[in-house]
């Protein structure tokens, strides 16, 4: 099931995020003299943000090719434009700081997009919007972490520039998802139980009829004896 695969992937993303958070927590406190060079938190965020940019660009291209919704395609194009711009700024800073960046999204990110693309029609849009929401939240949380623990001014400036863009994307994703009109939360009926009143009434009725019959027989016999 695509949903089951998506659940496994989100679990993998969770573990990755936890690992990233752990690495960030181990970063030594920076002194003012060391602030010009990237520390562990800065490097970790740059790599994660770069792969996030690449994944969002790929997701945008996927939406342009596959989505039946003009709104989703518009957001996909926005992702391509914005994340390309953010990534060109990020790669320039990485070169200055001698930080080596991966050349592609992570295997988990690529597989997650493949899962989204396995949904047909409007289900693709629903899966795409949900997956992108999860990804943008992860980026925002990682960026908040960088802003609180990072030290290199140029990386912190990148993180500050990234935040409003990703926030705007998150709002676009939320608005495109539409409004909830109903929740159809049960299909089996096993949790439901029928009222016992009709059965009780029927039983009492049958007993009364039986009692009337017995009483009638007794009365006839007594009448015959008399």
């Amino acid at each position: 099931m695509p949903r089951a695969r998506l659940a496994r992937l989100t679990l993998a993303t969770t573990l990755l995020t936890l690992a990233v958070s752990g690495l960030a927590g181990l970063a030594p406190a920076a002194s003012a003299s060391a602030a010009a060079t990237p520390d562990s938190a800065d490097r970790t965020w740059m790599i994660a943000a770069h792969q996030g940019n690449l994944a969002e660009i790929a997701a945008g291209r996927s939406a342009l090719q596959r989505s039946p919704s003009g709104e989703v395609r518009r957001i996909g194009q926005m992702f391509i434009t914005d994340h390309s711009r953010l990534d060109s700024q990020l790669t320039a800073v990485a070169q200055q700081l001698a930080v080596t960046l991966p050349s592609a999204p992570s295997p988990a990110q690529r597989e997650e997009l493949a899962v989204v693309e396995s949904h047909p029609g409007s289900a693709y849009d629903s899966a795409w919007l949900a997956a992108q929401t999860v990804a943008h939240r992860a980026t925002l949380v990682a960026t908040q972490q960088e802003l609180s623990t990072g030290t290199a001014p140029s990386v912190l400036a990148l993180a500050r520039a990234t935040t409003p863009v990703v926030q705007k994307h998150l709002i676009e994703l939320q608005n495109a998802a539409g409004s909830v009109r109903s929740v159809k939360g049960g299909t089996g009926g096993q949790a439901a139980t029928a009222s016992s009143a009709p059965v009780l009434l029927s039983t009492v009725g049958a007993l009364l009829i039986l009692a009337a019959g017995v009483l009638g027989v007794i009365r006839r016999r007594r009448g015959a004896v008399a």
Partner: protein
Amino acid sequence: MARRPTGPGPTIGLAVAGLACLGAGLALGPLQQPRVQVPDLGSEPAVPVSPAPPGPSSSPSGTASALPASLPWTVAASPRLLDLPTQRVRAHVVPIGLQSGSLDLPDDPHVVGWWAAGAAPGDSSGSAVLAAHLDSASRGIGVLTALTRVLPGDPMMIADAAGDVHRYSVDSRRTYAKADLPDALFARSGPPRLVLITCAGHFDARTGHYDSNLVVVARPDG
């Protein structure tokens, strides 16, 4: 010597009463539908509405003030695990969207869906909505049947993808006819809260659906 009455009065009376009960029982039987019905609980309204969402008071980038107010300034990572310790329930949480305006709930009633377009547990504002099937024709009774047993004050915990745990306490439980489910339950602004939804009421075996929603609202601790 007095003669005992031999008329048919008591016998006929019993027979008539019996026929009436039997008839009523047989007539009501087919009209009775299986149902899930629990009393509403909680002293506070299930749907507190705050028209003024808290927005960011300052922005490190200087651009956040232009953002729509619907975005919480502090956002949390996506939820992954729901824990209802008083009910001994722990369930995986997966992101879900909409299909034709309805929440696209996980087929498996042991898995809980998080409405990804709403707030997330831990966001600084808005309703974080979790929902699941009460039961499933193929997979039996689901984890959110626990909502029929929760009481005001019961704790609820949500672990998110970043490893943070968000703690809530149950405020209220309400049953709504499906057509009357308040839009405000899905508000992206207003005070932060956790909203859990499943089904309740009459189950129609012909359509395979319940006619009501059971809604539990919890507020963040601290």
